[in-house]
């Protein structure tokens, strides 16, 4: 058998780079479809307000304007926007339309969209729309939003509690009753804006003769987008082609189904001409999903030698004003991965999702999983500090031994393989841990503070439906042998900066 080429440790030049470094790559806004009209959005400056009146007369009178849509046209535009299937029995699912209907629930929520002959005309027309708002009290703090008397975002319910989830494992009460030491912490995993260098953008071209739609979106999930758009626009899936062209970064923020991805093709079908929308950076900060935003109250039970016997975590996850596509699923991953790389036999995870007057949170870099890692790693360090033990040794002590793999966690996952002690030993050797601690001690005497921190990480990836997670999807592939003898492989991979792109 021929030797396989060696890849690990070998520099490999990326095949997509020539077009990226010469400026010939095609991102959404680089498409020039003949006759393209441009969409622009008017967004709410209020976090929470009733829409009293929208006057679009002046905008409609502009000869360059082809269409104006507001929430009053609710019967005309597709929606509400769906979310991915998720198994949360008490999930409240508020209607989330592509345009605000009746009231706005966060700054940046689209109130109207305009289509005009060019991008300058579209922006001009947005400025001609007058909206009268009746501002309402706001709920921007997730804990306060849960208090009685808080302003209610979705008035069909009596509170802002979006859903709950409880994940019990072992006997956590017994663990705390018998604990030799307990440590508590309140951890804020702050909200952030993902900010890919390329803002979002969508272009759509409807071919009336073949009743088919072509849509280009700066998206991480063209396949999911295609299925969802086909349903929303009442087109057969084989008449919808979604193309993710060059994507200028995603970080999770483009793994979604956004209002604009529905409005642009809807308008392209209605107006029978190509429509493009490019997000401005200002809009990107307001109207593209945010990440994280969890308040975590955590308590750990342990023996004096640093062995963890139990963990309790009460987590409040700020969902923002509506659910975006994966939103409620994100903090449930925090629960599943709560033990991280450690053997924690007794555990209780109590999650509450909350609606607040802020942009929706959703998948951002690890999507709920780094939130679990940060929590458990902080807990390990706090426990080590409390017991005056080396944080490395507390980690080592709580790793499941290599002989325990495949290792079932108390949250219902099965870690297929691993040797965490050996990995840690290798790391300590590579960094010369003793020398580093000695350097830290000598610098401390000079009044200089050198920090040494450790973190371990394990992640569930490629999520398909399983006993632990009811949602997710399966990958498929098509392999085609061409007449030339060459082989074409079609997969669901959608490159957006990973180096997995085509030449």
């Amino acid at each position, binding site marked *: 058998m021929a030797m396989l080429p060696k890849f690990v440790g070998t520099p490999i030049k990326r095949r997509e*780079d020539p077009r*990226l*470094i010469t*400026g010939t790559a095609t991102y959404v806004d680089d498409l020039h479809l003949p006759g393209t009209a441009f969409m622009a959005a008017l967004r709410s400056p209020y976090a929470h307000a009733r829409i009293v009146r929208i006057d679009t007369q002046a905008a409609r009178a502009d000869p360059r304007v082809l269409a104006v849509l507001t929430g009053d046209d609710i019967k005309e535009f597709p929606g509400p926007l769906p979310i991915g299937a998720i198994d949360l029995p008490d999930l409240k699912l508020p209607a989330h339309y592509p345009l605000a209907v009746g009231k706005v629930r966060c700054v940046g929520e689209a109130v109207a969209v305009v289509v005009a002959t060019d991008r300058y005309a579209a922006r001009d027309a947005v400025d001609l729309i007058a909206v009268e708002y009746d501002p309402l009290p706001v709920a921007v703090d997730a804990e306060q939003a849960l208090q009685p008397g808080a302003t209610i975002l979705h008035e069909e319910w009596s509170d802002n509690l979006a859903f709950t989830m409880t994940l019990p494992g072992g006997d956590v009460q017994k663990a705390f009753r018998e604990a030799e030491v307990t440590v508590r912490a309140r951890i804020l995993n702050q909200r952030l804006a993902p900010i*890919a*260098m390329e803002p979002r953008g969508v272009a759509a071209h409807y071919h009336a003769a073949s009743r088919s739609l072509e849509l280009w979106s700066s998206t991480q999930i063209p396949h999911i987008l295609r299925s969802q758009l086909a349903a929303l626009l009442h087109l057969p899936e084989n008449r919808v082609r979604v193309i993710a062209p060059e994507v*200028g*970064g995603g970080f999770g923020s483009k793994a979604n189904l956004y209002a604009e991805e529905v409005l642009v093709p809807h308008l392209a079908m209605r107006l029978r001409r190509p429509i493009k929308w490019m997000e401005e950076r200002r809009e990107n900060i307001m109207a593209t999903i945010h990440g994280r935003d969890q308040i975590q109250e955590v308590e750990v039970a342990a023996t004096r030698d640093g062995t963890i016997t139990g963990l309790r975590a009460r987590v409040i996850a700020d969902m923002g004003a509506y659910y975006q596509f994966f939103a409620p699923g994100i903090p449930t991953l925090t629960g599943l991965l709560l033990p991280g790389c450690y053997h924690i036999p007794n555990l209780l995870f109590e999650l509450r999702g909350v609606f607040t007057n802020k942009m929706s949170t959703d998948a951002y870099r690890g999507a709920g999983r780094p939130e679990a890692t940060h929590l458990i790693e902080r807990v390990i360090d706090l426990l080590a500090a409390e017991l005056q033990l080396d944080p490395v040794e507390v980690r080592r002590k709580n790793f499941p031994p290599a002989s325990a793999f495949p290792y079932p966690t108390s949250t219902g996952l099965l870690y297929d393989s691993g040797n965490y002690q050996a990995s840690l030993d290798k790391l300590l050797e590579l960094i010369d841990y003793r020398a580093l601690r000695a350097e830290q001690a000598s610098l401390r005497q000079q009044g200089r503070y050198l920090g040494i921190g450790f973190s371990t990480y394990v992640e569930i990836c490629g999520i398909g439906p399983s006993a632990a997670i009811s949602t997710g999807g399966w990958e498929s592939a098509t392999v085609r042998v061409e007449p030339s003898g060459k082989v074409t492989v079609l997969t669901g991979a959608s490159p957006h*900066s990973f180096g997995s792109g085509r030449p």
Partner: protein
Amino acid sequence: MCKISLTVNGARTSHEVEPRFLLVHYLRDVLGLTGTHIGCDTSQCGACTVMLNGVAVKSCTILAVQADGAEVLTIEGLGSEEHLHPIQEGFWEEHGLQCGFCTPGMIMAVHQLLQRNPDPTDEQIRWGIEGNLCRCTGYQHIVNAVRYAARKLQATR
């Protein structure tokens, strides 16, 4: 409408534009030079960097009329896939990009940097590209790419 005439990547061009029309839209939408990107609309990110009369500028906050009579160099004029400029080669060799969206602007900023200082230190490189943001790389490989380009340019000088 105002008539403007300028030279872009060595070719003369002339059009009627609105006084408010941005240079970046002129390059991208009128001339079809879409290698120059728009990342922030506000001169923060540098994705739209081009050379205007030999000086790197952010074309998202320059009016097209301000470029009347000027010489403009964009990423398309710097090199091609067949004849990569040493800076472009450096970015490819040293993995100086991931999503590539900031890269053309970054390369143009580096072009100015190396014209002014053919042998910059790492610190000078980092100061030299401070007006250009990259979200993917963490900059270290970009610094390596600039050093590669500086070496290559000096060797061929």
